[in-house]
């Protein structure tokens, strides 16, 4: 009987170099490189050794370099793995790639050789989350899991399963988009789906509403931009590899950088102008800018006429509505309009596409289909058709925006009254101008979709959409910009299963909604460091029969599992990366043999599939699967062995053809997508739900607005186990303004508690004027290091009404001195 082994996650960072060396030597002896199927892709200059490098490098060692790529949800940087005698001695960024790898990528050598890696399969030996484990063989683990899955399947069907594939490894044979892990669950017959997602749901819904879908990534094209508006996000951290392009545009063309952020972020610190607004008030600031553009004629009138539905005629109700007259009495911004925008109707005719909508032809003085050649569509005015008054969409936009005066914007957002006009004029004065929103923190708010639509309105009004270096920039990649890959194995159609909204995981598990979940399978996901109101999720795990977690380390999530399965790092398996965060397709070569008993996600899922009777399609040579994945890309494995390939047009201009997948084929300021779903079809600001000026009862107990930030040391929950990173970023840090810190007796560097009715975490205080008064900031997730510091514990589990997205930046807390009890 194997002895239970205590695993102490808090002890994960005490490794010294002596441990590391000892451990490396052990591995070096046991894991000589097999050689078969491994390619030497590049030699250092002249084939000479790369010099003394890494721990214990031998004088005569020959360095072989293997290509791989950093797979979490970041920039997918190309990495070079330097191997000597079967041991990885160094990781460097590929200098020929479009971005150069950062500290996270090159510190992966410490992940590989970390003494704290999971080494063999383990089964829970005490209470759930009690950190008592017993070692089991792979055979025993897989047989038991498969047997219990089969029994649950027989008793309660596929809906009793919940599968999480996280952002820890977005490669094709792992948990990537259209990857092998999702194919496994498809061939399993399905599982309870997670509805929407925590990341960028409100970006998707904003693009759906206004552009008819699509995404827009042009980070390589920043060199062409002449103005940057970083809005509610921090590209200096989340796109640090691409910042060189922004710096180049500044140095060569004088491009200015303006940042809107409650924090003096790394980007704000480098900006020509920094504007602080209260979290969740972005759409009000956007409407204030729109008012300035429209009032001062700082928009591209011809573009707006041709490519948007601004000239389409609108009426309200059966009798029409005299907008100009009525709007004079409308209340100032942020207060409820006396008219229900959902009652607006676009006037339609008989045609199709844009031709099915009607505009007023100023030349002919009559209504015509919007695509009528030679017509001059009116943007302004009021027109009587069949006795009913109509105004163009443009007039409604103008009337709504007119209420967002500098004073109203100041009152709502906290920004100075003169900030709005200054930014609007600057933004509109030069093209191409880029709004960098990158799945911003600003869209993870109670009305995040409106924030995104605000950005799209501004870019559309100024004619920046479809322009090289202009538009609204997102993180994106090959799969999000129109490319496609095959799943590694064929998939099937499964019966529909009711899902669980992403933000509601805890509530649904606790209340067994929409049906009881009996088994949870997690691969590369920080469920208990990312999903909100985390204490509730942990409570919900009491209702689970079986939880299986496959990971590299004993993460917070893994601690609550019944079975923990050790997974290989990216140096130990062959794989492929073609995803939604880089345009490049990359081969990931196996550099060394797997350490300990670790196995790839691909091997684990294949073994389970075989035991469950559908393994044939999975149990094939790696390269056969990879060639199948690559088939639609037109890129071959042989090409990839020479280096990463960008199959997309270069330069890439999103929406270059000005064709939009909306009912009218145009940019829809008046969104039929939103109207069909019961929301206002035009952009109007709505206050957050969880904000101190809205919820005064809550504000009495938790008066501070909490926002989550990202740091250079992690991506979601990944990289928290790299000791070279934790040496620099040692703990959760809460940023707080001196005026908020002082009455609480909190000094810089103090150990503090951050809490609300959802839970409490520990942090170190950073007292700084680099954050807005009334707002505090923590590092999102802080996954797997110390559960007492995990920010998701504080996050609300409500969702954004349009996108069902995450609202972690519409959150309220209070802060007090002293560590947690």
């Amino acid at each position, binding site marked *: 009987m194997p002895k239970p082994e205590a695993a102490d996650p808090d002890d994960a960072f005490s490794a010294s170099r002596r441990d590391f060396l000892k451990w490396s030597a052990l591995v070096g002896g046991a894991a000589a490189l097999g050689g078969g199927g491994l390619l030497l892709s590049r030699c*250092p200059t002249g084939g000479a050794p790369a010099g003394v490098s890494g721990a214990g490098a031998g004088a005569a060692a020959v360095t072989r370099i293997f290509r791989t790529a950093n797979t979490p949800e970041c920039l997918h940087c190309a990495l070079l793995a330097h191997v000597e005698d079967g041991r990885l001695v160094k990781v460097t960024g590929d200098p020929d790639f479009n971005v*150069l790898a950062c500290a996270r990528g*090159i510190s992966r050598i410490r992940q590989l050789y970390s003494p704290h890696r999971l080494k063999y399969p383990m089964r829970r030996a005490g209470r759930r989350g009690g950190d008592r484990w017993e070692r089991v063989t792979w055979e025993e683990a897989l047989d038991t899991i498969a047997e219990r899955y089969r029994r649950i399947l027989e008793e309660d069907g596929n809906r009793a399963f919940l599968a999480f594939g996280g952002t820890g490894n977005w490669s094709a044979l792992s948990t990537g988009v259209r990857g092998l892990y999702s194919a496994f669950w498809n061939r399993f017959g399905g599982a309870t789906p997670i509805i929407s997602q925590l990341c960028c749901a409100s970006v998707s819904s904003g693009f759906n509403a206004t552009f008819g879908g699509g995404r827009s990534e042009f980070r390589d094209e920043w060199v062409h931009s002449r103005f940057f508006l970083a809005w509610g996000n921090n590209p200096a951290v989340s796109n640090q590899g691409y*910042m060189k392009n922004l710096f180049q545009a500044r140095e060569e063309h004088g491009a200015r950088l303006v940042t809107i952020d409650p924090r003096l972020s790394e980007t704000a610190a480098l900006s020509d102008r*920094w504007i602080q607004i209260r979290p969740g008030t972005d759409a009000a600031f956007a409407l204030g800018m729109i008012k300035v553009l429209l009032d001062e004629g700082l928009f591209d009138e011809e573009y707006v006429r041709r490519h948007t539905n601004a000239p389409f005629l609108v009426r309200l109700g059966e009798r029409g509505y005299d907008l100009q007259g009525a709007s004079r009495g409308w209340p100032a911004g942020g207060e409820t309009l006396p008219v229900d925008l959902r009652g607006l109707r676009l006037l339609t005719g008989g045609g199709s596409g844009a031709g099915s909508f009607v505009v007023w032809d100023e030349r002919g003085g009559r209504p015509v289909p919007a695509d009528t050649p030679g017509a001059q569509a009116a943007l302004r005015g009021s027109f009587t058709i069949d006795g009913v008054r109509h105004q163009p969409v443009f007039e409604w936009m103008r009337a709504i925006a007119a209420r967002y005066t500098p004073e109203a914007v100041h009152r709502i957002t906290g920004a100075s009254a003169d900030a709005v006009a200054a930014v609007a004029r600057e933004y509109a004065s030069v093209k191409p101008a880029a709004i960098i929103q990158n799945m911003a923190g600003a869209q993870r708010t109670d009305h995040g979709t409106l924030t995104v639509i605000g950005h799209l309105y501004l870019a559309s009004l100024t004619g920046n959409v479809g322009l090289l270096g202009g538009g609204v920039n997102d993180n994106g990649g090959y799969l999000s910009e129109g490319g496609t890959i095959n799943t590694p194995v064929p998939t099937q159609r499964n019966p529909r299963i009711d899902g669980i909204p992403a933000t509601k995981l805890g509530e649904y598990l606790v209340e067994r909604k929409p049906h009881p979940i009996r088994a949870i399978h997690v691969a590369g996901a920080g469920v208990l460091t990312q999903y909100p109101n985390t204490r509730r999720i942990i409570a919900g795990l009491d209702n689970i029969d079986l939880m299986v977690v496959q990971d590299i380390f004993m993460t917070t999530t893994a601690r609550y599992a019944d079975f923990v399965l050790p997974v290989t790092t990216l140096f130990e398996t062959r794989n492929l990366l073609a995803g939604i965060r880089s345009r490049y397709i990359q081969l990931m070569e196996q550099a060394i043999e797997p350490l300990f008993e670790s196995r790839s996600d691909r091997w684990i899922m294949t073994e389970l599939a075989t035991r469950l009777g559908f393994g044939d399609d999975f149990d094939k040579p790696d390269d056969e699967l990879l060639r199948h994945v690559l088939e639609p890309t037109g890129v071959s494995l042989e090409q990839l062995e020479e280096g990463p390939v960008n199959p997309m047009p270069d330069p890439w201009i999103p929406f270059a053809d000005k064709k939009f997948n909306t009912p009218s084929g145009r940019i829809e300021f008046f969104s039929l997508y939103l109207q069909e779903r019961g929301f206002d079809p035009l952009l109007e600001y709505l206050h957050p739900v969880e904000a101190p000026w809205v919820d005064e009862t809550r504000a009495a107990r938790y008066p501070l607005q909490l926002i989550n930030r990202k740091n250079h040391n992690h991506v979601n929950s990944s990289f928290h186990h790299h000791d070279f990173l934790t*040496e620099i970023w040692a703990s959760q840090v809460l940023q707080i303004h001196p005026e908020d810190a002082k009455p609480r007796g909190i000094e810089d560097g103090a150990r503090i508690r951050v809490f609300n009715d959802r839970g409490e975490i520990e942090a170190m205080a950073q007292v700084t004027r680099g954050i807005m008064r009334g707002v505090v900031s923590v590092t999102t997730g802080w996954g797997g290091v110390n559960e007492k510091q995990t920010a998701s514990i504080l996050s609300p589990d409500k969702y954004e009404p349009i996108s069902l997205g995450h609202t972690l930046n519409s959150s309220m807390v209070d802060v007090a001195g002293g560590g947690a009890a």
Partner: protein
Amino acid sequence: MSRQVAFFFDANRCTGCRTCEVACKVENGVELGPRWRKVRTVEGDGRGGPYMYHVSMSCNHCEVPVCAEACPSGAITKRPDGIVIVDESKCIGARLCAWACPYDAPQFSEETGKMEKCNFCSHRIDAGTGGPACAEACPTKALQWGPLDEVAAKQGATDRFGPLPDADITKPAIRFIPLKLVRA
């Protein structure tokens, strides 16, 4: 005599990502504890509001290496190309170099009981395989390296930067471009 090598740091291009720090540790097998290169973040509150910038610095391979002068065992020497190196076999761990250095460059290793510090990746320079790993890893080219005369000739380059000690003390082989937008 070879030309003195030097670092170049542009605060307008530094995002504070610490890739230089980690690249140094990975290249040189530096254990946890000693940090041959450190990125420090400077925060302040000027007339134009709060500001923040980063400084990436290691040993500056000074033209006047006061560390070498302070070393009682002659373990620190300056090479013809200006690289200041520690001979660990001669180091007795007296730490006087750390006292003398105004830049906190020499690091004491609890593992070995010796001092260690940035060697400008002299093994790479000598083998002709490149320059310091930190500069070559910088994703934004905020940190660069080259001969001191070339680095010093870059537009806007200065040896006076923020809170650093007076450059006349040791004549550090590093030039800076300070953040242009400090709201001071």
